[in-house]
Each structure stands twice: as structure tokens, then as C-alpha cells.
């Protein structure tokens, strides 16, 4: 393999994993917009999605897509419960204690998953069979195409939700100005619960589409969650476009670094990038406030 096809390979793998980071980062942004806290249990939603899909598939013997759907809905429900807990504490707690609650929730989810499904990594079948595709010497597994496609679909869905539906606009209104949102008759608490449910479901989708490539295990969420958080910071916490760009940039940088320098530094690269951004441009690449107040 010559250098160009090597770099192409890294970029393609980078986009694959970056797409997952982007979905997770979008989940962080959704909740951050609604309640201005960082939900550190976001990574566990990813894990729960993957593990539940595997479990439902094996235990219930339903087709793959049904298992996937059930997993997404259940994780969405779990997210809604966490959201309920959060708004219950919202009035009397500082953001910091809420963030600690989400850390507690993440440890809890991880523990429950370990007890229920054990410590072994479990396989989820790929969504379609077929041989790897060769592009100019680089190789792409079919599941990568699923990851690209579904991620793009999710992002488009979130965009349409926020820009075109009145429910989505109301959620944006809550993010932009809670006081104003209450005054036009929006039930802010309900919106917060929905934000948690949607971002949990998004996380679950991320976990499910990556599971055929990386396997599903009880501890997969921690690192994915942290990387997604880095991506959200890189792009600008709270910005949808930033989450996507941050995820892709992070995924590509990570794979280039791992391939060209040393794979030992793979995880370090993400955190170095995050630290650099926090020093140089704390609002993130796309999180700058402009004239319209964003």
C-alpha cells in the first residue's frame, strides 16, 4: 500500500468512527441546550443501545431491525427517566451537582449492564452481508456505509426537527430563552424530558451502528462518551453543525495520528485536541456567539 492509499484508508476509517462521535456529540449538545448541563451518562446510552440490541436479538428471536427499534425506544425511555430525575433536582441544585448526578447514573448503567450481560464483548451482526469495498487501495467494510448513511439520516432528521416542526422550534425556544418559552405556554419541564429522551435515543443509534464493527460490551460507552464530549467541545457545545464537524475532524485526526505516528497515542490525540481548543478557543470552532445571540 503506498502512502496515498494509506492516508485514504485512515481518512475513511476516521470518517466512520467520526460519524459515531458526531452522533454522540449531538446528544451532548441537545441536552446542553435544554438544561445547560453536560450529561456525562451520554456514553452509557450508546452502550445500552448496543447491548440491548444484542440482547433482544438473541433473547426474543426477532429480526435485526425490530431488535434495533426496540433497543432505541427502550434507551429513549431510560433517557426520559434520567431527564425526569434531572428536572426534579433542577430547581434546588447547582449545575455541578446535576452533572455529578449524571456521572452517578453512568456508573449505575454500566454496573447494571455488567451484571445483566456479563463482561464479554458481544457481537451484533452487520446490517448487510457483502465483501469489503476497495477504493483506490483503501478498504471499506459495508457496515461503514451503513454508518455514514444512518448518521447522515439522523443529522438530517435532527435538522428538520429543529427547523421545520413546531415541536422542534419550541424545543429550540426553550434552549434559547426559557423565560420566553414559559411565557408563550411551552411546558419547559416536558421539553427537557424530551431532550433527554431524544439524545438518549440518538446515543443508542450510535451504539447500534458501531456495534457490528467494534462489538458491544458493558464498558464501551465510557471512551465513546468521552470522545463524543471532545467532539462536542471541539465543534462548540450546543451547536448542531459543530457537533458534526467536531466528530468528523476528531475521527480523522485520531486515525491519521494512530496510523502515521503511533497507535499508542490514539486516545491521547482526542484529549490533546480538546485541551488545545479549550486553551485557544473555548467556545469551540463553531460555537462563537454572533450578532443574533447564538
Amino acid at each position, binding site marked *: 500500500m503506498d502512502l496515498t492509499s494509506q492516508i485514504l484508508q485512515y481518512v475513511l476509517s476516521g470518517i466512520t468512527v467520526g460519524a459515531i462521535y458526531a452522533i454522540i456529540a449531538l446528544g451532548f449538545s441537545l441536552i446542553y441546550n435544554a438544561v445547560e448541563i453536560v450529561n456525562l451518562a451520554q456514553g452509557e446510552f450508546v452502550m445500552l443501545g448496543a447491548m440491548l440490541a444484542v440482547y433482544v436479538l438473541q433473547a426474543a428471536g426477532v429480526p435485526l431491525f425490530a431488535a434495533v427499534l426496540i433497543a432505541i425506544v427502550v434507551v429513549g425511555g431510560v433517557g426520559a427517566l434520567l431527564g425526569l430525575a434531572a428536572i426534579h433536582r433542577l430547581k434546588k441544585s447547582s449545575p455541578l451537582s446535576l452533572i455529578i448526578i449524571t456521572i452517578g447514573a453512568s456508573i449505575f448503567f454500566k454496573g447494571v449492564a455488567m451484571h445483566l450481560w456479563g463482561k464479554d464483548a458481544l457481537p451484533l451482526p452487520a446490517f448487510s452481508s457483502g465483501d469489503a469495498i476497495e477504493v483506490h487501495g483503501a478498504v471499506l467494510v459495508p457496515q461503514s456505509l451503513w454508518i455514514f448513511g444512518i448518521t447522515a439520516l439522523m443529522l438530517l432528521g435532527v435538522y428538520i426537527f429543529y427547523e421545520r416542526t413546531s415541536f422542534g422550534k419550541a424545543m429550540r425556544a426553550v434552549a434559547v430563552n426559557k423565560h420566553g418559552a414559559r411565557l*408563550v405556554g411551552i411546558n419547559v419541564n416536558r421539553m427537557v424530558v424530551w431532550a433527554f429522551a431524544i439524545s438518549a435515543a440518538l446515543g443508542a443509534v450510535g451504539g447500534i451502528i458501531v456495534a457490528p464493527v467494534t462489538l458491544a460490551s458493558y464498558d464501551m460507552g465510557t471512551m465513546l462518551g468521552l470522545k463524543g464530549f471532545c467532539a462536542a467541545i471541539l465543534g462548540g457545545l450546543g451547536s448542531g453543525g459543530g457537533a458534526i464537524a467536531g466528530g468528523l475532524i476528531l475521527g480523522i485526526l485520531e486515525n491519521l495520528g494512530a496510523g502515521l505516528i503511533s497507535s499508542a497515542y490514539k486516545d491521547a490525540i482526542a484529549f490533546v485536541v480538546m485541551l488545545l481548543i479549550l486553551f485557544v478557543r473555548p467556545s469551540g470552532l463553531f460555537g462563537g456567539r454572533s450578532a443574533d*445571540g*447564538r
Partner: protein
Amino acid sequence: MLRVRSLTTHYGGIQALKGVSLHVDTGEIVALVGANGAGKTTILNTICGMVPASSGEVLFDGKPVTNAAPDRLVRMGLSQVPEGRQVFAPMTVLDNLKLGAYARPRAEKKREMKSDLEFIYETFPILKERSKQHAGTLSGGEQQMLAIGRALMSKPKMLLLDEPSVGLAPLVVKEIFRVISRFRDLGTTVLLVEQNARASLGIADRGYVLETGKILLEDAASELLINKEVQRAYLGKGYRHVWE
């Protein structure tokens, strides 16, 4: 339409309202005037359920609504135009107006959204020109018009207006008060909270004077305007009216 009985409110240990009673009849414009810190905004926020009442009672349309959630009040027909306007800055003027109708039943929205928007644009033509712009790019006066328009989109029976004139140019203030005075013809009841006592009493039917959390005076607006005490304390007697 609205009746408030011996309302008290605390912020921590500080008593902001010390037993306020007032009422607004259907179709009336009532002005609530008083100096900074008298508790004007606190009254509105307590009525709207934004600030919890410690004791006392709020009745809207004959039903008890003390400490009701704000979204429930909007559904019942009580809308507030808040101090500082609270428009959704990064969203378009049109989206802001549409969100104003958020609490209304879906079928009704579908049927009446267009004509309601037409009505808002007729009232404030500048909003039509700016409908695609982000609300945050509007001037203060335009944002105030947008905040009023947004509240009107909920088709309220009654509108609570908090300091609509604050920080605006005299000509804009005049325009906004002209629109508020027209609500009487539309059958929308108004409770107007203002530091600009002269302008608000000028369009109101009745007025209340609030001082340090208590109602000091209640009378017809025309009487309050010539009341010596009110003139001395709130109208700046001896100064010419700003747009005369």
C-alpha cells in the same frame, strides 16, 4: 376578569409584596404605576406563576389560579409581555410569532394562523418587513412590538404588559401606547405596569399606585393624573410631557 386578593410574595427573607389587592374588569385597561423596586414586576410575575406567592389569592376568569404554571395560564387566556421582551433572538420574527400560538389547539392554529399573522402585520407593519430576519437583529422598539405580537398570537383574553416603554425612543413609545390603547376596541383586557406614569395613565381607564409592596392609591386614571401627590411623586410636575 382578574382579581388579586391580599397577595404576598417573598424573595428569600425579603417581603416584596405586602398584601396587594387589585382587580381588572373585562375590557378595561388598568395601569399599575410606581417607582423602581415598588414591586410592580413582582406582582405580574406572581400572577403569572413565575414567582411563588406566599399567601393570598389570584382569580382569573372566576377560577383560582394562584401559583398556576405559566403554560396553563397561557392556555386559559392570560398572556404576559415580559420586561426585557424575551424574544427568541436566533429565530426569525415569523418563528417567534408562530411560537406565540404554541399553546393553542392544533386545529384552531391551522385554521387561524394566517389571518392572525395578517392582523399582527397590520398592527405592526415593520414586523412584516422584518419577518425573515432574526429577532436578535431588531431594534429595541421592534423587539417590543414583536413581544406584544407574540403574546397576541396566543389570542389572550387578557394581556399583562411589563414596562413596554423602557429604554425606547419617545416616538416608539408613542406608537406602542397607541397600539395598546386600541386593545380596548378588540376586547382584550390589559394590565399595564409602567414607570412612565403619565403615558400609561393617559391610555388607562383606572390606575393603581404601588409603593414598597403596597397599593397606595386606586382611582380612575384621569383622577390620578391630576392628583397632587401622584403629580409630585411620579409625573414630574413642572416638566413638559416628553412628546408634547
